[in-house]
């Protein structure tokens, strides 16, 4: 017999039954099944019968009475409703209970014989009732369920009311009393009562097991063991399912599987194992043998220690995502973006997110690419959307999309005024991208949404009204709130829990608990502790605060002007701007002025970070610095990370790409890239830190290499320059003929001009085609006495072609005429620079083939060998090979090793020094850039020159080295390609650099002061491949070769357990231990998907 309360339930339940009176059906069968019920109630029934005897009223009137009484219970109405609900539960529960009770009944049946009871019951109950229906067996079966109830019912509701009951209100009163009692029981007790009685299926027998602590449920050695079976990683779930299937298959056969459960913990460290609960190893093997992906060998199943069993089922409570929460996306285009959870799939693996899309609407791509994709063809799009270059996050705009992608844009079916667009594969609702994501691609913890991000989601709802879901936001934020946010001294407020509204000053923070001294109210002065989650920072109007993080306003200082819940609006000190941030992102600022700056570094200071890196300060914070280093990267660092400050060198000089000087405060302009210009702030080696006041980022600072800029305006300081003026030293510049002064002039050669006395034709101009003799010549022009007209004209040297006076054939003057007189062709060399595009020069540019007849003989010869030259990578000019010494130029080869083109080696160089200083380097890059690639005869022509000029004169090369002082050169010469590589793969830009060394050579003294040595002069002698070496400027820095994006291997942290419990739902005669084991299973698996099946 259960407690008294049990009867209450029975009573209340039976009341409803009464309104649908069950026909009193009794039969032998029923008697047997309910013998227990009868037993229970027999005593009471006797009483009842007495009562019923006394009052004899028809059942109907009693019902009315009962209704009346029910109405009378005015306050009981709700209770009644509650009762009804409770009853439903009970009925559900009873289904399970029946089984056990049946068992019990069976037991009892042995002891109690059915007949006496049957008779008695019939006598007691049915004496006033027409019992004709009782013979109906079918009914009886139908009503089985109803008949199960009586044992729980109040006896007087078991059957139709006996006659005379209507006058007897004793039972009504009794009932009312019970109901009152019931109503008076507080809800918790009631729930406990319910739970005790019906809450558990298998523990009703020992009803107090609900109180048993978890520790007692832990499996013992008496429980079945758990065995680990290896399986293919990732296939754990399949294996478990297979085992379950096998179990089901064999359940009713002769050899059922002897296992109790199987489960897996695929997503965790236990990956690659399934766990089978069984008594014997053999059972495990039998269960797993032959199952695909399960690796079971006779000794393979590993027994799990009893103590470790619990660990197997330990789950780290995963944060359950709910719609409205915010997450961050871990990878892909939206990496790092905030997203709002729209819906969570029931399997918990996928969520539908709302994202502010990042679309370029095809503006940056090949127009056809997306279409191709849409049609199913896979086209590899260029890797776009790295985090750096992805489009900005903006709401979807159909007008933008229509511009280029009208074909893949279609109006979707929206509901209730939502604008839905299908654009490509994705759907956009109200401007947001709505997309499914796997949970493990999301960051659900430490989301830290900033207010700006969140307002994007909020404000964009209907008509931009601010319907920020603060509750959801608060939930997200609270999750992330950590103790770190609170520091002793902070004013905090408890905003939830019993102590809500209490505020005080934090005096200590330990883990997640903050100790605070209450500053206001009744509890003032008390020290209490509160969990971090219930706390928020407290600010009041007028507080002077600093934004410490989590928003774009970091480091702003201002005064609080409004506080609403978690949001604090403050007015910044700097510009009286109103900004709103979360309280957690604020900290009380010291009351003293914020402007005091203790940093020993100032804005725009040049600082040394390490031996090879310098940087310029672009922002000074209270305790950190933001610097732009020489590689154009911005970093934040502590002042202690800086080794020292570099004083500004007033006399630092660099050379720009034209070889002209750059000094501090000069205005320079970038040659490539964005063409930025600005004032030189610092010169460090060949890096220039340039300030551009129109640029906002990095405090207007950027860094370039000196070789990438040209001087726009020098700040008149050159007069004082310590070193010699380069431009004055350079004959080419002095001549001033070269366009904008950067073309390398021809070699100024000694001796008589070779052109004098030559028979020439004029190649262009009004005298074109006329023959004459050169009477006089200067650097640029020649005076030609025409044969046909007695007249001496002045013609540009470039427009003259030398003819053999007798044959009229073209003569390659400069070369054919002998080494001694190179001067005549000086112009041609000049023409060799890219700028001179006409005439002879054309022949030298690789693009234009040499103009047949005018090509010097050697040139053609060289041309013939071009392929060979090309095969040598263009390094070795054809004539080179032919020459006995590889360094002997073709036109010099008659002379063997002796150098140069201009006759005796010692004479070659302009300015003496025995080196071909003027030179060649100017060409080198130029030729190189083409010669190596084209292999045309032009290359052969041009290529060889270079080596010729310096190659043979080792002494000269030496001097070059001195002059150039290129560390880079030295470094690279070692590793450079073998000889003859005078034609480095320098970019065309190198051509402009080239002149520098030329100048440098004759002016060694000058270069000593140059912070940006230039390498060109040097490699002549060694024939190093300057490909990389001396032309640092020629090769744009490519920091862009970043590391390839390697998505981190993400371990699937799915803590759920998949398994099945063989014993679930009543299978087998579970021992007590098993029952608890199951309990333990269940309690441990509260939040996991349990693949259980009932048998």
């Amino acid at each position, binding site marked *: 017999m259960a407690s008294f309360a049990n009867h209450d339930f029975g009573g209340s339940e039976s009341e409803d039954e009464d309104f649908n009176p069950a026909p009193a059906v009794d039969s032998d069968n029923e008697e047997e099944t309910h013998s227990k019920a009868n037993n229970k109630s027999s005593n009471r029934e006797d009483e009842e019968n007495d009562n019923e005897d006394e009052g004899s009223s028809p059942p109907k009137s009693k019902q009315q009475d009962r209704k009346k009484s029910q109405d009378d219970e005015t306050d009981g109405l709700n209770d009644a409703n509650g009762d009804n609900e409770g009853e439903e539960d009970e009925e559900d529960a009873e289904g399970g209970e029946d089984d056990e009770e049946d068992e019990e009944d069976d037991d009892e049946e042995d002891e109690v014989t059915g007949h006496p009871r049957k008779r008695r019951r019939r006598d007691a109950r049915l004496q006033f009732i027409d019992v004709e229906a009782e013979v109906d067996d079918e009914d009886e079966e139908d009503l089985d369920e109803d008949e199960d109830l009586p044992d729980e019912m109040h006896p007087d509701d078991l059957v139709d009311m006996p006659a005379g009951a209507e006058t007897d209100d004793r039972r009504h009163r009794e009932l009312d009393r019970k109901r009152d009692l019931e109503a008076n029981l507080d809800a918790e007790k009631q729930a406990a009562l319910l739970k005790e009685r019906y809450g558990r299926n298998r523990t009703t027998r020992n009803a107090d097991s609900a109180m048993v602590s978890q520790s007692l449920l832990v499996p013992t050695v008496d429980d079945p063991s758990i065995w680990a079976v290896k399986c293919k990683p990732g296939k754990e779930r399949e294996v478990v399912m297979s085992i379950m299937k096998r179990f089901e298959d064999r359940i009713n056969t002769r050899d059922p599987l002897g296992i109790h459960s199987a489960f897996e913990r695929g997503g965790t460290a236990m990956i690659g194992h399934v766990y089978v609960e069984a008594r014997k190893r053999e059972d495990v093997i039998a269960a797993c043998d032959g199952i695909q992906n399960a690796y079971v060998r006779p000794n393979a199943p590993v027994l799990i220690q009893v103590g470790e069993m619990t660990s197997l089922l330990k789950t780290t409570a995963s944060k359950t995502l709910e719609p409205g929460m915010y997450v961050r996306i871990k990878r892909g285009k939206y990496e790092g973006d905030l997203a709002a959870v729209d819906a969570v799939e029931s399997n918990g693996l996928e969520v539908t997110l709302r994202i502010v899309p990042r679309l370029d609407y095809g503006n940056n791509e090949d127009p056809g690419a997306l279409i191709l994709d849409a049609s199913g063809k896979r086209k590899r799009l260029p890797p776009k959307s790295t985090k750096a270059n992805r489009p900005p996050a903006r709401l979807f705009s159909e007008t933008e999309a229509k511009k280029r992608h009208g074909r893949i844009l279609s109006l979707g079916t929206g509901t209730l005024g939502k604008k839905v667009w299908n654009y490509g594969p994705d759907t956009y609702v109200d401007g947001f991208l709505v997309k499914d994501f796997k949970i493990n691609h999301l960051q659900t913890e430490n989301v830290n949404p900033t207010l700006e991000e969140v307002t994007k989601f909020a404000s964009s709802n209907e008509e931009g009204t601010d319907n920020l879901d603060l509750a959801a936001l608060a939930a997200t934020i609270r999750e992330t709130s950590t103790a770190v946010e609170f520091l002793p001294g902070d004013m905090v407020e408890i905003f939830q829990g019993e102590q809500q509204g209490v505020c005080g000053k934090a005096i200590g923070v330990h883990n997640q608990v903050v100790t605070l001294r209450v500053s206001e109210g009744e509890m003032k002065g008390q020290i209490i502790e509160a969990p971090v989650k219930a706390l928020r920072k407290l600010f009041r*109007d*007028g*507080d*002077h605060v600093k934004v410490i993080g989590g928003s774009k306003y970091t480091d702003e200082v201002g005064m609080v002007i409004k506080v609403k819940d978690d949001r604090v609006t403050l007015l910044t*000190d700097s510009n009286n701007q*109103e900004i709103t941030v979360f309280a957690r992102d604020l900290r009380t600022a010291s*009351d003293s*002025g*914020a402007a*005091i700056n203790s940093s020993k570094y100032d804005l725009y200071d040049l600082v040394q970070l390490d031996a090879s890196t310098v940087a310029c300060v672009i922002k000074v914070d209270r305790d950190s610095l933001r610097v732009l280093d020489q590689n154009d990267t911005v970093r934040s660092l502590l002042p202690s990370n800086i080794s020292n400050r570099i004083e500004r060198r007033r006399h630092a000089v660099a050379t720009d790409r034209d070889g002209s000087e750059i000094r501090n405060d000069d205005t320079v302009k970038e040659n490539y890239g964005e063409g930025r210009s600005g004032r030189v702030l610092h010169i460090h080696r060949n890096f220039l830190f340039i300030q551009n006041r129109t640029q906002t980022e990095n405090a207007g600072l950027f860094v370039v290499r000196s070789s990438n800029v040209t001087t726009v305006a020098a700040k008149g300081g050159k007069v004082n320059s310590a070193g010699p003026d380069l431009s004055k030293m350079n004959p080419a510049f002095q001549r001033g003929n070269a366009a904008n002064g950067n073309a390398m002039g021809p070699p100024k050669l000694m001796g008589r001009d070779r052109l004098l006395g030559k028979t020439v034709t004029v190649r262009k101009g009004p005298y074109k085609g006329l023959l004459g003799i050169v009477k006089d010549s200067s650097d640029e022009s020649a005076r030609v006495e025409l044969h046909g007209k007695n007249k001496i004209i002045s013609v540009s040297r470039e427009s003259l072609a030398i003819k053999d006076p007798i044959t009229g054939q073209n003569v390659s003057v400069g070369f054919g005429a002998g080494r001694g007189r190179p001067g005549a062709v000086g112009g041609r060399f000049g023409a060799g620079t890219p700028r001179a595009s006409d005439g002879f020069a054309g022949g030298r540019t690789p693009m234009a083939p040499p103009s047949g007849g005018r090509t010097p003989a050697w040139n053609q010869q060289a041309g013939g060998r071009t392929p060979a030259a090309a095969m040598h990578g263009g390094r070795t000019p054809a004539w080179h090979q032919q020459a006995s010494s590889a360094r002997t130029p073709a036109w010099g080869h008659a002379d063997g090793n002796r150098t140069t083109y201009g006759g005796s080696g010692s004479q070659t160089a302009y300015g003496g020094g025995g080196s071909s200083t003027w030179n060649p380097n100017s060409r080198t890059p130029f030729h190189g850039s083409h010669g190596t690639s084209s292999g045309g005869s032009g290359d052969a022509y041009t290529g060889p020159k270079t080596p010729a000029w310096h190659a043979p004169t080792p002494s000269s090369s030496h001097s070059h080295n001195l002059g150039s002082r290129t560390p880079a050169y030295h470094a690279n010469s070692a590793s450079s390609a073998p000889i003859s590589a005078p034609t480095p793969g320098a970019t065309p830009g190198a051509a402009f650099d080239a002149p520098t060394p030329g100048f440098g050579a004759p002016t060694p003294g000058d270069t000593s002061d140059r912070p940006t040595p230039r390498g060109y002069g040097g490699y002549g002698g060694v024939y190093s491949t300057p490909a990389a070496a001396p032309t640092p400027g020629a090769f744009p820095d490519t920091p862009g070769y970043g590391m390839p994006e390697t998505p981190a291997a993400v371990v699937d942290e799915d803590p759920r357990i998949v398994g099945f419990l063989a014993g679930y739902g009543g299978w087998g005669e579970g021992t007590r231990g098993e029952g608890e084991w199951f309990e333990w299973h269940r309690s441990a698996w509260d939040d996991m998907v349990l693949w259980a099946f009932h048998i």
Partner: protein
Amino acid sequence: MFFLHEMERTILIHPSFFGPRMRDYIDTQLLHDVEGKNAGSYFIICVMEGYHVSEGRVVPGSSHAEYTVHYRAVVWRPFKGEVVNGKLKQLDGIVTSVVETGFFVDVGPISAFVAKTMIPSDIKFDGNATPAQWTDNADQVIEKGTHIRLKVKGIRVELGSMFAIATIKEDYLGPLA
């Protein structure tokens, strides 16, 4: 709020001022040094008569004489929550930048800013008026030169100056008739 505050100050006198009128010079120097100056969280409005000057002492190593002056002064220290009257220095925001809304008020030596959130909602910014003004289109007009009563919400002290934010969003605050 105004207070009488006792302070002391050290004054250095150059030897050229040594002589019978030295006391006058010290007076002048003191008034010049402290009156109207911001001394941290308060302003020194006026130095009271009858201050005490200590014996002079020649500083070793230099020829200056050092006098310590004890004086009393009327100081004004603004407090949070204090209601003050001010004269509008300028109206902020002909520029249509919405964030910069509000107006500045000179309250004695400090400049107070009344932000938009601190202004009753019925008083709106009218940028078209000349001069631009905050008005409720009735009797309350806040423009440059308006006398206004406001309540200090917060004070920021910077070196040599003070800055406050204030509100008129309470009863009896706002422009004075």
